[in-house]
Each structure stands twice: as structure tokens, then as C-alpha cells.
């Protein structure tokens, strides 16, 4: 018998939470009677720096090839395919890893992409592409998303490294130089229109414009 006669009965869980919230709000809106304004401002500043630094560090941690390929879906499918392409190993030793092409470098665009990627976390948890067969079945859909994204931002991630301004067409093969002058420099097409499937294998291309 823990309850003593005459004492009020213990309130329910939600009532207790609500009581705590009301009390907390009261503390937050009351001016401090212990700390000086300068101390509060400095503490807020330091806490802000720590929070912001921590946030960006965590963000950059999710923006590495190591993080991306920690899932077997990425490691066994798309990374394995990337390894034989020029974006992985080449004469100058510059590697474009996953986020170089798949995450915008600009901060606001990056945050927007990261929010979209929460859908991919959902897919990971529920195993949407957790076997090779499922991945191959979804391959066209996944590729269409990326092509649409590149088309919409004028192949921004390509242009982070390859800019048409610094492109020396005299150093290119005759075919490439003619094509770039006709289609790229005139703005008629963007990189992804012609350069599909350069870093990963192509899905079933029937019905994709320009393909058989």
C-alpha cells in the first residue's frame, strides 16, 4: 500500500509531461537572475559554434565514398560498376567519388538533396533494393531520377569539374570537338543528354530518347 490516505492521486503520464512543459516555458521566458547578459550571449555563441560545427561535420561524414558504400546495395552494385570507368581510375589520378556527382556542392542545394535522401534511408530500412534482382528491377527508375536531376540543374555536378569555358576543343578528338561545338557550346544539350552510362551500367534503354 504505497498511497497514503489524504494525498492526491499521482497524475497520469500526459498530465505530468504537460506540467513539465509549462514549468520549462516559465523558466525560459523569465529573465535570468543568476547569469549576466554577457555570459548568456557568450554561452549562446559558443554553443552555436559547437552545434553548427558538429552539424556540418556530421553532414560531411555522410558525404563520403566510405559512407555511401557502407551499404551493400551501393558497394555491390554501383560502386563495383564505377571501378572500371575513367571516373574511378585514370591517367591523372583524380577520382570522382559518389558525392562528387550525386550531391550538389552548394550548401543549400546539398541540404535539399540530403532531405530527399531520407527516402533512400526508408528504402534501406525496408530493403527496397537489397538484392541484385531487386536492384536491377529498379534500375531504370533510379537512373531516370538521376537523369532528370542532371537535366534540371544543367548537369551541375559534371560542371563542377568539367566546364565548357575551360574546355580546350583542340585537344579533343575530332568527333568530340565537333559534337561539343554543335551541342554543348550552343546550349542545345547538356552533358547528361549524351553522356549517359559513363559511370554505371545502363538500365534497359528502350524508350529512352536517343537510344534504341
Amino acid at each position, binding site marked *: 500500500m504505497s498511497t497514503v490516505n489524504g494525498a492526491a492521486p499521482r497524475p497520469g503520464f500526459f498530465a505530468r509531461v504537460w506540467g513539465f512543459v509549462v514549468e520549462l516555458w516559465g523558466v525560459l521566458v523569465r529573465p535570468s537572475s543568476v547569469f549576466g547578459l554577457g555570459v548568456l550571449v557568450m554561452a549562446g555563441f559558443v554553443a552555436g559554434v559547437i552545434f553548427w560545427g558538429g552539424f556540418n561535420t556530421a553532414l560531411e561524414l555522410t558525404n563520403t565514398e566510405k559512407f555511401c558504400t557502407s551499404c551493400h546495395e551501393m558497394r555491390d552494385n554501383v560502386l563495383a560498376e564505377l571501378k572500371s570507368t575513367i571516373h574511378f581510375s585514370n591517367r591523372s589520378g583524380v577520382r570522382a567519388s559518389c558525392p562528387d556527382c550525386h550531391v550538389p556542392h552548394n550548401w543549400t542545394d546539398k541540404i535539399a538533396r540530403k532531405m530527399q535522401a531520407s527516402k533512400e534511408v526508408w528504402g534501406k530500412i525496408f530493403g527496397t533494393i537489397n538484392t541484385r534482382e531487386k536492384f536491377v528491377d529498379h534500375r531504370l527508375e533510379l537512373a531516370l531520377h538521376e537523369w532528370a536531376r542532371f537535366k534540371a540543374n544543367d548537369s551541375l555536378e559534371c560542371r563542377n569539374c568539367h566546364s565548357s569555358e575551360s574546355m580546350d576543343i583542340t585537344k579533343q*578528338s575530332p*568527333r568530340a570537338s565537333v559534337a561539343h561545338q554543335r551541342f554543348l557550346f550552343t546550349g542545345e544539350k547538356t552533358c547528361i543528354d549524351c553522356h549517359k552510362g559513363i559511370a554505371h*551500367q*545502363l538500365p*534497359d534503354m528502350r524508350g529512352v530518347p536517343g537510344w534504341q
Partner: protein
Amino acid sequence: MIRKTAILLLAAALVAGAGSLTAQTLNSGLRGPAPLNEEGAAAPMAPNKNTAEREVRNYPEQPPVIPHSIDGYQIDLNGNKCLSCHARARTAESQAPMVSITHFMDRDGQFLASVSPRRFFCTECHVPQSTATPPVSNNFVDVDTLLSRAAPGGRR
């Protein structure tokens, strides 16, 4: 007794011969200075030709060779990178030569609407060209040269 001496002499000759053979290095144009019992260093790989110029065919039926690089071109069930320029509908934009009409024929000689499955895999016949100098020269003579040899002064 004579027989025993002969065997001994033959054995000595064989040993001496084998010794001089192993000491020898065969320096042929194909092998280079590598000894016969060693593999030798691989020659550096020559880059492929990468132009848009057509090459002459050695005989009329020859599949034209590919004058440009095809590194990373995917040709499989999912897609055919070659056809994204050489298909009939793509040639205006790409200015590439169209695949020959023979590629539209099935095995019964009937023309299909697009490239026949048996002609889909381009690199079964068409190949890119290396810039390496061949170690063995080729003395192939085309039929025009052969005919003009047979009839001095030329014959057409």
C-alpha cells in the same frame, strides 16, 4: 669397350651442348632480348586511333573498322551505345555513317524495321584500331593491285 666410350662421348657432347644453349640468348624481333626461359616485360599498350576519318576497306565485304575509341561503350541486352549515333534515326544529329541496310535483314533475307538481333553486337565484326606498329608486317595485296599485276598497264 668402344661402345662404352661412344656413349660417354655422346653424353659429354650433350652436356656441353645443353650448357651452351642455356647460355645463349635468342634475340629475335618478336621476343626482344628476353631469354627463352623467361617471359620478358610486356610491351606498353598503344592507344587506339581516335579520329572520325573512314579507313579504306581491303575488300568489298570487309566490315569497316572503327576509327575512333570505344572505351566504355556498353553493348548488351540493355542498350547499344554505338547505335545512339549510328542508328538510322540518329545519323542526322550525329553525322555518323548509318549501319548498313544488310544489318536490318534477318537470316531469311527479310528486312526488319531496325537492326536485326543477329547483327546487334557491333564488335563481333567491327573493331577499333590500335596505333601500335605490328611486329610482323602484312603483305596483303588487294584485288585491284592483283589484277593490274596480271595485266601490265592496268585493267579495269
